[in-house]
């Protein structure tokens, strides 16, 4: 048994398909590409695929990851080329590698995501002021924000301190009443924060007139940590 980890994109129109759609799409793409998949046991066998983390509908990404189990050793270039032939426009495998036998699954190791968020400003604000607002925003020990309740277990909406989940937040660019924010946020089972929540809090607390309706989010990369250092899952 072998495991391949692949980094792939989900851009263009493909940002509009849901996570469940993506899972099906990948399974079928691997089947069409005749990748020697390993199946789960049971009444409804499915290929052994693990996805790093779900992306919200409408969010594009060039840093998505999955692990796939295969029966036979195959050439990585062949794997990449064949699967890419079977993927729709907007999806592409960029990199892949074999995993060591004992390595943890992609889902378990992800800790951070980096994003670019494009937001329109409702009125003109000098760049210096925006930077000051962001710096002030980050200087707080506690930033309370509403966390959307999970769909399962009838969770109630609760207020949480999101400051601890913001690793980095900076103004990336600013022109014509549009800003691009770059942020690195906690992602995965040990803490998860979505960029939407950050810009909502920013709009509310930092008095930057962001037009939330027109925000567009793009994920750049996922990270794990090794000895306190951020690493990509494939490096």
């Amino acid at each position, binding site marked *: 048994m072998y495991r391949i980890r692949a980094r792939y994109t989900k851009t263009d129109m493909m940002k509009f398909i849901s996570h*469940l759609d993506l899972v099906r799409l990948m399974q*079928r793409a691997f089947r069409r590409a005749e990748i020697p998949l390993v199946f789960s046991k049971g009444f409804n066998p499915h290929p052994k695929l693990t996805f790093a983390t779900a992306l919200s509908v409408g969010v594009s990404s060039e840093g998505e990851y999955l692990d796939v189990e295969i029966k036979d050793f195959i050439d990585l270039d062949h794997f990449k080329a064949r699967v890419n032939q079977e993927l*729709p426009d907007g999806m592409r495998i960029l990199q892949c590698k074999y995993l060591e036998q004992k390595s943890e699954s992609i889902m378990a190791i992800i800790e951070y995501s980096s994003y670019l968020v494009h937001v329109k400003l409702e009125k003109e604000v000098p760049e210096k002021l925006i930077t000051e607002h962001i710096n002030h925003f980050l200087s707080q020990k506690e930033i309370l924000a509403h966390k959307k309740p999970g769909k399962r277990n009838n969770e109630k909406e609760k207020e949480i301190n999101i400051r601890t989940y913001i690793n980095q937040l900076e103004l990336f660019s600013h022109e014509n009443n549009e800003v691009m924010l770059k942020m690195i946020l906690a992602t995965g089972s040990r803490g998860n924060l979505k960029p939407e929540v950050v810009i909502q809090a920013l709009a509310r607390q930092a008095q930057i007139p962001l037009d939330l309706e027109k925000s567009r989010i793009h994920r750049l990369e996922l990270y794990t940590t090794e000895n306190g250092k951020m690493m990509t899952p494939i490096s």
Partner: protein
Amino acid sequence: MNKSVLEELLYKVEKPSRYIGKEINSVSKNLDKIAVRFGFAFPDIYEVGMSHLGMHILYNLLNQQEDIYCERIFAPWTDMEEQLRSQHLPLFTLETHSAVKDLDFIGFTLQYELSYTNIINMLDMGQIPIRSKDRREADPFIIAGGPCAYNPEPLAEIADIFVIGEAEEVILEIVEAYKQWKLENKERSSFLERIVNIPGVYIPVFYQALYDKTGKLTEFLPIQEEYPKEITKRIIENLDEVYYPERVIVPFMDIVHDRAMVEVFRGCTRGCRFCQAGMIYRPLRERSIDKVKSIAHELIKSTGYEELSLASLSTSDYSELEVLVKHLIQQHGEEKVGISLPSLRLDSFSMELLEEIQKVRKTGLTFAPEAGTQRLRDVINKGVTEEDLLGTVEKAFSMGWSNIKLYFMIGLPTETYEDLDGIADLAHRVIDTYYKVPKEKRNKGLTVSISTSSFVPKAFTPFQWEAQNTVEDIKAKQNYLKNKLRHKNIKYSYHQAETSYMEGVFARGDRRVGQALIKAWEMGCKFDGWNDFFNYDLWMRAFEECGIDPNFYTARTREYDERLPWDHIQTGIRKQFLINESEKAKAGILTQDCRLNCTGCGINQGLIGGVC
């Protein structure tokens, strides 16, 4: 529509993947090299329309032609409709996101009467006049086909052209004629003139209906001598020679039937008397096992689907089913491609096959005894006995199934409350059968799902003259069953009585009900097949405002000699055969499967000549 406009729309709707197109195996073409643009329109949402096999066949068949481009059109969900209407954007195709009015043809498939308001709504969203008479030179021609087109009259004012029967050949003949017509640059009606004599083509505007004082249809005449008096359905004679797609679109989103489908035969020999499909799709034509194998193989390869369905009206009847299923399991079992057999019969042979199939992937188990007593099953010619059913479920329980679904119809001709008791008795006997199976053999958690639909008499069946149960009758029967079926292991579900009633009005309606249809849409009716949307009171008001009594179409038992609104359509089945079957039904006499011996329906005489 340009991409940025589309993207803005997609951010505002709940399930954007319904509208993006570009799925695996969808077709893109250079519009500069296209002579004819065709839109295949399904009057329901993407998830429903994409599950329809006919769409996949015709989409790919048309796109095989270099100079034709067939795109898909679905009814947008209400959130998208609101966006389009508020921004004055037209309904668009999935492939190129073009306005549908830019196409040459829009072909609607008529699978269900309660999707008719969606057709009107889609035309309106497409900025195309909803009535045929209001369309001008620049508008597309509106074609309609599919099973409901066998009674085309309720849509006579809306569609320009109907196609009766199987469309693979006739659709290309129509498009060919269109290319010629386009060169001549003549008016719209001259195109209709050009195709009126193509077999299977029905141009409703060329015919006139006359009624007597009681409202009954008396005459139905072509307005010119040269137009055909009868329109004969088209059939494909040889399924091995006709086109069948080896690549089909694989949707991104989860659709109702998300699997590859190979059609193994057309037609059905069982002769169930309520079943319209069993009559109109005659004669029986099988696809050869070699052809089925090769299509199945190609489809699995080109789609990556994990499930393959062997489609037909009664797949257990395919003559080489056992060999086929074993072959498919042998070829594709290792890749965990499951096989699904819809419309399974209640016999031990089917169960043995299922045992093989479930080694790869387990499927649900649904049986359709249709009626609760032997008497009523004989009336409808459903040749299934209680022994068959109990024997089969016993086998199923010992094979590990503990969820069984049973389908019945209520409101069948001659039905009494004893027949309803029969449904409840059968359900309880199924439960008893479960407990008789040794504990170590059966699985825990028995659920017997009983589902009843309400019988709607359909054109071209032996029950086409019958009165349909009223809404009140059906509701009383459903309540009766609800009480009888209270049991911890039974789940009972039933269809809304009012929707079946409205389905009945249009299933046997004439031209006049089209007025009420348009009126109901004007009042806001759409997605009538969806319980959340169906508004019975609005429908009744629409009929009242048009001065049409819907009971005239549903509640009346017709005489055999009454002229029926669909009598100008020729299915190849003799009316006398339907009358005989109707009489045999009343007497509870069975008619055998016509594979065993010809039952004289007439299909082998006019339409195909010789033996079925």
